[in-house]
């Protein structure tokens, strides 16, 4: 299939995927476009196929044979010849901070991706220093992973990805094992990097509030199928769907519903925290 330059950095068309030894496909007929420079949340319950999607994007898993299937990353179609090219452009931060730390020290780990790409030694040193500076881990450069907290290990993982200068960062439940503070600081860090370098972020998460706060686009996945895509507020307004697939209700809608139940009439168009606060203040002054 001919690949055309477009606004979409990632396109998946008619992707099917079946794990070996499994009768049911893990993903069926996935069609997904991700805009360059956007923050996309992929959300769904355990086993819905979220992680599988990201592993297909950089060729860690290969989709089922199908003539119509194609995966395009940054105007390159994924194939045996381009897979390493595409991995250069896509960095993944995985869930368990312990199991993705390859180097024996922080600096070694950040350098691992650079070593694999045959980067020359001096260049490697400057990039490692810079990447550690960006994530605020400079003073830990010689620390061993067993002496770091989970949040710090995830920062190192992000530094390792920044050092290779990717175009897409995938957070594969990267904050799931962290405490609320660690989670918030990691997300803030990624947001900052995204805006500065115009990166595309794909975040796989269970956390609906994170999606509402950070994402431009949300993809709801259930049983290997995409249920809904679009603006987070609009998607989460569909409460019947959210409840049916067993997701948590976003805080703003939860509050709204409770207020409505308590007899306070809140118009439908109030759908962000800011609007709600303003509306409630107005209500308070007119009472």
């Amino acid at each position, binding site marked *: 299939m001919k690949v055309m330059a477009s606004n979409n950095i990632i396109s998946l068309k008619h992707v099917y995927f079946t794990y070996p030894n499994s009768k049911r496909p893990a993903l069926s007929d996935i069609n997904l476009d991700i805009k360059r420079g956007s923050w996309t949340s992929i959300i769904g319950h355990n086993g819905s196929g979220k992680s599988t999607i990201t592993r297909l994007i950089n060729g860690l898993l290969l989709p089922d044979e199908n003539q119509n299937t194609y995966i395009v990353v940054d105007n390159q179609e994924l194939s045996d010849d381009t897979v390493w090219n595409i991995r250069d452009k896509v960095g993944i931060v995985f869930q368990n901070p312990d199991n993705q730390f390859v180097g*024996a020290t922080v600096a070694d780990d950040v350098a*691992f991706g650079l*070593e694999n790409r*045959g980067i020359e030694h001096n260049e490697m040193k400057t990039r490692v220093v810079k990447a550690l500076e960006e994530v605020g881990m400079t003073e830990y450069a010689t620390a061993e992973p067993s002496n770091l907290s989970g949040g710090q290990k995830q920062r190192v993982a992000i530094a390792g990805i920044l050092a*290779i200068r990717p175009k897409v960062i995938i957070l594969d439940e990267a904050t799931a094992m962290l405490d609320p503070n660690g989670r918030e600081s990691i997300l803030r860090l990624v947001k900052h990097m995204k805006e500065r370098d115009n990166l595309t972020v794909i975040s796989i998460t269970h956390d609906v509030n994170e999606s509402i706060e950070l994402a431009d686009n949300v993809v709801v996945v259930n049983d290997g199928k995409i249920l809904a895509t679009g603006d987070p507020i609009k998607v989460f307004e569909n409460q019947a769907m959210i409840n049916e697939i067993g997701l948590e209700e976003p805080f703003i809608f939860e509050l709204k519903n409770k207020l409505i139940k308590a007899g306070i009439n809140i118009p439908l168009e109030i759908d962000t925290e800011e609007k709600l606060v303003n509306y409630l203040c107005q209500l308070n002054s007119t009472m």
Partner: protein
Amino acid sequence: MDPRGKLLATIFFVCIIFLANNWLSYSIICLFSLLAVWATKLKPKVFWDGVKPLIGLIFFTSLLQLFFTSGGEVYWKWWIFTCSSYGITNAVYIFIRFTLIILISTVMTVTTMPLEIADAMEWILTPLKIFKVPVDKIALVMSIALRFVPTLFDETFKIMNAQRSRGADFNNGGLIKRAKAIAPLLVPLFINSLQTAVDLSTAMEARGYRGSEGRTRYRVLNWSKYDLYNLGYFVILTVLLLIFRTH
């Protein structure tokens, strides 16, 4: 100091210690090792801890030497045991030899990070590339293995505590009972390690690892002048030993 220098020196020391075969050469080598120990400026306790676990073995071999070496003036004899002048000197030599080898290895291990030792091993193994030995891969395996030692220890203690909280007893009972008690510890640990290996390989691949072809290295070792001094001392020591050796 460069870990390669230290590793080479340690191996070399173990070889040349067998050159010593009289009181003079033994005093030279003792003096030399004590200088090395003194140069580390560590507390004697560190070295005592190094020797302690092997003390039984040292005494056992020395005693064997003492009683089973014949020749020289016989001081005492009973059944197969003899105590002769040769036996006494041999026993003392063996005793010194053992202690010195352990002392010097302790100097090596306490002053070098495990990671540096792995680097030095890799450097020493490099010539094996001629025989198609995958030295880069062995080195990567070594560094990952070392990196996971503390992580696996943490994991082990966690599992132990989790099993204890459900009533497992690791410290009591006879041999068989204890061996059985270890199963609930080993099985999860084994499965965890496999899971970790799978995750780690995925992460490595995602970060562009495709075998050792075309890889560069972040960590490089540098020879300093101290390493040359160090090896120089060893040359002097060898020459001294060769001169004072009795034939």
